[in-house]
Every structure is written in C-alpha cells, then in structure tokens.
C-alpha cells in the first residue's frame, strides 16, 4: 500500500474556470493508494509548495501527484518541493489539467471528467515509481564557436575574458563575416571596419582564443559538457609559421578571378587574402583556380615568396577536439534576387543588391569608395532603392520581414546624397524602424538628405537609353509613377546560409521552415537550442542587425560560461536500461538510437550444469541517452525500458484510462 497525496491546483481561474475542482478532489479521494487530497489556488506559489511539504510530513506521504499545468512549466519546481520534504524527486507525477484540459475544452462537465481521468492516470503511474538518482559527469572546459562573424567574435571574446579557452572555426580565409563587407553602419554611420577590426585583432591576440580559419566542422559526437568535434582544416598551401603576410605572392600571381568578398565586382588572385584587414593576414591558394594546380606550371608565388612559405603539397587536416559547449554563429547570406525577372537583376549591370552597394561605397572596395555604376563607371545622379525584395513576398518564397533592410536602405539614401549628391528614391511598402535612434535616422534620410520615399512596390524595371525606368504606383496618391534612374539598388532579403540545414544535422539541432536555427523557446530561451550545451548567436537564428547580434552573442557566451564554470553536470536519470537477463543480443536497438547511446557488450553467464558461457547484450551509455524511448519500442524481448517510463508504468496508465 502506497500513501499518495493529490494536490489539485486552480491556477486562478485558468483551471478552476473550466474544471470543477471539488468533483476532481472527490474522485481522487476514492482512487487506490490515495490517502490525502488538497486543493490550492496556486500550487506553484510558496504557500502552495509549503502545503505539499507539510502534507508529506504530517500525512507521511510517500508519493505525490500534482494536478496543475504542463510539466514543462513546473515539473522541476515540484521535484524540488518534494525532495525538500525528504522524498525522492522522482516519486512525483504531474497531471496536466491546464494545457491538456481546461484550456482546450469549452464544456465544464467534459473538462472535469477529463481532469479526473488525467489525475487517475497519474495516481496509477506514481504507484509504480521508484526512487531514481542523478549521476554527475565532468565538463570539458573549452568552448567551440562556429562562424567568425561579429556574432562569433563577440561570443568568443566574452568567453575568453571569463578565462575559458575558445576555438573559433570559420570557413572562409578570414574572420569578420558580413560586417567586414559593410561601409558605414546605421544608426550612427560609424565606419564598419573601424569598429570591427579592433575586435578582430583582440580575438587574434587573446591568449584564450584559437582561430581556425579556412576550416569547417565535419562531425560532432557526444553531449553537453563533452562534445567530440572533428574539424577539417582545409589546406591553405601556406606555411603560416613562416608567412609574414608581405603580399608579394598575390601581387605576382597571374591568375585573376572574381572576388567573393567584393561579390564579383572586383578581382582577386588565385593566392589571396579576401580583404586588406583580413585576420589572419595570411593568404590561401584557391586550388581550383591556381595555374600550378591546374597545369603543373607557374609557381610564381613560390619563386617570389621571400619567406619560403608556399607549401603546394599541404593536405587537408582532420583535427579532433573536445568541447564542453558549442555556440553556432554562422550568420546569413543576402538573397539572390534573380527570381524577380521584372527587376532585371543579372540582366542589367546597374541593378545591384544592397550588399553590392556596400562594396561600391567602401574605400577598400573595387572602386576605392567612389560610387560608380558598374556598367560604364558613370557617377549616378538618380538612384532608386527598392525595399522588400524577396522579403514579405510569399509568392517568391520568403514570408518574413528581413528586419534590417528599412534601415540599411535609409543608410544607402543618406550615403548617396552625402557622397555624390545623387537623389535617392525609396520604394517601400512599410518603413519599420523600431530601435533606439532608428526612427530619427530614417527622418534624417528624408529631412536632411531629401530622399523621396514612395509608398508602393516597383512592378517593372526596363532599360531606356542609358537609364533604367522603374514603374510603380504611389499608393498614397493612387497614381502610377515612373522614375528614370541611373542605378537601382535592391534591398534584398537576409536568408539562411546555404549549408545551414546540413550543419544542423551534424549538430543535432533544429531549424525552421526558413532554415534559420530554432531557439528552445521563442520568448524565454532565445539563445539556447533544444540540444543541451549548444547555443545560438546572430543572424543564423533569424535576420537581425549588429546591435541585436552582439547582444545575443554576449547572451550565448554567458550561457556557455555558466556551463563551463560548473565542476560537474548532473544528468537526468530517466534513461534506458537493459534487462540483461532477457536481452537476446540482437542489437536491433543500436541503429535505432538517434543519440548513438547503445552498443553491444559481452557478458559472462553461468548456465545450467555449472558451465560459463559468453554472450552479447545491449549496453546503454547513460550520459549519451536522452530517454527518448525509441529502443524500448524496437526491442523484441521487452528487455529495454526507460527508467521512470517502463513498460509497467505505461501499462498502469493505460489501465487507469481504459479499465
């Protein structure tokens, strides 16, 4: 005979409004093993919890059922409550009579009946519960940051400042990300490089930070506190210990190619650093386009390199390292607006994207900061900026608002006036400027820089002589309008990295329908993923500007620091357990386990006649197991059980509901 106490919560009127608490109490009092029933207006409040503890002691309860909200809300609260009164934390069951009941039923009688059923289920199950103990595991005191944009750099600096070692893995030859490509930054118009490069240098010089550029994460195994990560360090073909970054090699290299950093508007060599302030300031050789790699002849770089740093025979290296926490900061890409045939991107050279414009205004860009149009190098006089290209357009595939375009379009309008006295026309559907100093910045574009804002969407861009005619409607006037422009800038959407989903699979984290990584809770856990120990920072989680990116990066860093500063981590005891006596060793469960937690092991066994035999049985690594239960369903002999959710528990619940 157990001594079960049932505590029914009103949750104010959230539960009590649709469930008759008295009826639930009366029904609970008649259930097997129940010796005590009580109701509270708010069971999770301090008096509510104190009432449970008091009852445990006075009524000598050995099991507790709380009929309240979802266990996702307060399971941990009530586990602490019962253990505070001396009971094992796992001798508690929650009946969710709010989300599963009062909130979804319009009919009080039916709601009450269901609440009684859910309480009975919990009472039957709790009777089978046994005390479970949490184990503890060690934490590897090192963090991995994937992506070296401003998000990754900020997160790494914060972790390093807290005294923990960090590795940044960046796939391109330099850290910096998109911020390095920008010219000025809204809302203050300070130069992007001037505020970014000091942080890049800090990251390079910080004793606690290891930069691994031209590298990618290949494999991730393990779990919170103990990830084992395989990193591919791509062959740079440079001995970085010898290279001084003098630049002779790239000045001599005869192979010219479009520069990715300048978005094809400028050129680079086959041996290159992507931009002058790159960190590390050591080149890479682009194997696919190097004349020596293609034909076996050239080696100009090697001949001229005064340091003897060129290493054609360098190979990719696979490095395996252990980490306690991972921060994903892989950023975004600007959307290719080619699907808008009507805007002529790709067909007309002077129709460019916002990011391309950033390179045109940038002093380190292909035009050395002079705003010239790509087709003929003329300085444009009238420039049309089109907002929401791709964004907020379900027909073209992007339902969301990219959040930054209104602001960077205002910035482009200001720069056009300030630098070349060109007249900006901005076609918009809405101007969204929620941010500190943002509305004022937009006002500055219109008032001080006389940008003409036209409320409407451009329907077509076509060439007339050397002009680009943009047709649209001024919806405020209800009149069709046409602007003859010299250049058109498309404020194209911010989209996910092309390989975002692949990395998500490698890491075992989830992503949304737009391939942005999903946070554990949209409001309350915005930088955590659903995989413990992996955190998110920056635009990989959704479009955001630099201030928001940096804030999120520091938040992710503080989560990682909190984790790394723990001596030990407690593990959930709700893991799979093998009954070796009946396990047949078929290992059917092994490939089914999504966490690679199951392996075979050989045990010795005495059989009838005194002989000892060896046989294989399944064995669960409790630190890897997440208690998902896939193996228990797969096991043919019923040897696999998740503690706290054994087959016996489930059958008790079925009995409670169906008998």
């Amino acid at each position, binding site marked *: 005979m157990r001594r079960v106490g049932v505590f029914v919560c009103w949750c104010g009127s959230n539960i009590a409004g649709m469930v008759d608490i008295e009826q639930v109490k009366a029904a609970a009092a008649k259930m097997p093993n129940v010796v005590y029933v009580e109701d509270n207006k708010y069971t999770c409040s301090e008096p509510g919890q104190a009432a449970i503890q008091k009852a445990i002691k006075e009524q000598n309860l050995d099991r507790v059922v709380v009929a309240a909200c979802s266990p996702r809300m307060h399971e941990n609260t009530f586990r602490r409550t019962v253990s505070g009164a001396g009971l094992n934390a796992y001798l508690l069951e929650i009946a969710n009579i709010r989300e599963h009941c009062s909130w979804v039923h319009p009919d009080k009688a039916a709601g009450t009946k269901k609440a009684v059923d859910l309480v009975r289920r919990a009472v039957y199950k709790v009777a089978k519960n046994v005390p479970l103990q949490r184990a503890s595991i060690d934490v590897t005191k090192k963090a991995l940051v994937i992506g070296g944009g401003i998000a990754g750099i900020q997160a790494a600096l914060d972790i390093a400042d807290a005294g923990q070692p960090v590795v940044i893995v960046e796939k391109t030859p330099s850290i910096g990300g998109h911020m390095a490509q920008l010219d000025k930054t809204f809302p203050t118009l300070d130069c992007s490089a001037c505020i970014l490069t000091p942080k890049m240098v800090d990251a390079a010089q910080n004793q606690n930070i290891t930069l691994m550029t031209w590298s990618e994460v290949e494999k991730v195994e393990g779990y919170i506190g103990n990830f084992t990560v395989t990193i591919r360090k791509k062959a740079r073909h440079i001995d970085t210990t010898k290279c001084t970054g003098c630049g002779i090699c790239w000045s001599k290299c005869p192979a010219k190619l479009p520069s990715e950093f300048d978005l094809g508007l400028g050129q680079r060599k086959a041996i290159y650093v992507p931009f002058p302030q790159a960190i590390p300031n050591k080149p890479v050789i682009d194997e696919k386009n190097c004349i020596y790699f293609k034909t076996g002849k050239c080696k100009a770089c090697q001949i001229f390199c005064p340091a003897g740093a060129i290493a054609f025979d360098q190979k990719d290296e696979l490095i395996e390292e252990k980490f306690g926490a991972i921060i994903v900061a892989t950023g975004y890409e600007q959307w290719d607006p080619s699907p808008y045939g009507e805007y002529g991107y790709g067909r007309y050279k002077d129709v460019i994207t916002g990011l391309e414009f950033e390179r045109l205004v940038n002093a380190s860009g292909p035009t050395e900061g002079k705003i010239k149009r790509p087709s003929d190098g003329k300085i444009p006089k009238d420039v049309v900026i089109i907002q929401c290209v791709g964004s907020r357009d*379900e*027909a073209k595939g992007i339902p969301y608002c990219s959040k930054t375009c209104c602001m960077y379009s205002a910035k482009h309008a200001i720069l056009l006036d300030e630098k070349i006295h060109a007249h900006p026309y901005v076609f918009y*559907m*809405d101007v969204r400027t929620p941010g500190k100093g943002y509305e004022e910045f937009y006002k500055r574009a219109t008032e001080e820089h006389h940008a003409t804002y036209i*409320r*409407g969407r451009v*329907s077509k861009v076509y060439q007339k002589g050397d002009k680009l005619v943009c047709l*649209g*409607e001024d919806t405020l006037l*209800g009149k069709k309008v046409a602007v003859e422009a010299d250049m058109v800038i498309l404020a194209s959407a911010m989209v996910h990295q092309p390989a975002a989903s692949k990395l998500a699979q490698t890491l075992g984290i989830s992503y949304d329908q737009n391939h942005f990584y999903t946070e554990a809770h949209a409001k309350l856990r915005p930088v955590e993923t659903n995989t413990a120990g992996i955190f998110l920072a920056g635009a990989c989680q959704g479009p955001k500007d630099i201030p928001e990116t940096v804030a999120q990066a520091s938040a992710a860093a503080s989560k990682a620091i909190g984790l790394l500063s723990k001596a030990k981590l407690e593990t959930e005891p709700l893991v799979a357990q093998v009954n070796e006596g009946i396990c047949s060793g078929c290992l059917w469960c092994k490939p089914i386990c999504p966490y690679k937690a199951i392996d075979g092991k050989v045990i010795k066994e005495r059989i009838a006649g005194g002989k000892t035999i060896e046989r294989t049985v399944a064995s669960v690594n409790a630190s890897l197991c997440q208690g998902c239960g896939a193996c228990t369903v797969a096991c043919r002999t019923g040897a696999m059980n998740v503690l706290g959710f054994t087959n016996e528990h489930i059958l008790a619940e079925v009995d409670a509901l169906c008998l």
Partner: protein
Amino acid sequence: MALLNPDLADQVRQATPWSSSGHEFNASACMNCGVCGAVCPMGIELLPRKLFRYVLLGMEDQVKENTETIYSCLLCKMCEVNCPAGVHIAENVRSLRHFINRQVFRL
C-alpha cells in the same frame, strides 16, 4: 465622410455560389503595395487595391458606383502573379461581379 460597415465583405462572400470552396472573397492580406495597379494592362487604377478596400471597409456606394470598372477587368491575373501577399485578386473580382449582378442588375 463614409460610415464603415463591416458586413459588406460578408454580403459579397455570401453572394458567390462557390462561397464554401475556399475561394470566397478575401483581401485581408493586402499590404496596399500597389503593384497590382502598376502592372494592370487595362490601367485600371481602382483595381484591385482601392476597390477591395471599399469592400473591406463597407463603402457600398463606392463599390456600386464602379460597376463599369469591375466589368472592365480582363481577369488576366497579371496582378495576381505579382502580388506579394498572395491575394487571389481575380477570384475576388469574380465574387464582386456576382455581388453586382444581384445588387445592381437584380439578376
């Protein structure tokens, strides 16, 4: 000044024989970007943006006054393929024609 009447959109919806097929009058997603008017080969400025607004706000007189315009639409769907909000513009115009047939022509 126009007195708003939220029932008009419902009346238009009910006027269509296919009102339960999921294609009934629905222009609530319109962002008033104006691309529809800008691409319209008939140059119908009223269509569909303003007209839909008259319906949504319940300005019945303006809707009825524009019977000619509602019938000059080619249903070519140029507007519809360019609409970023995915409004089924041509279906909406067809719904309106049913409404006009009943209310104005008493068909």
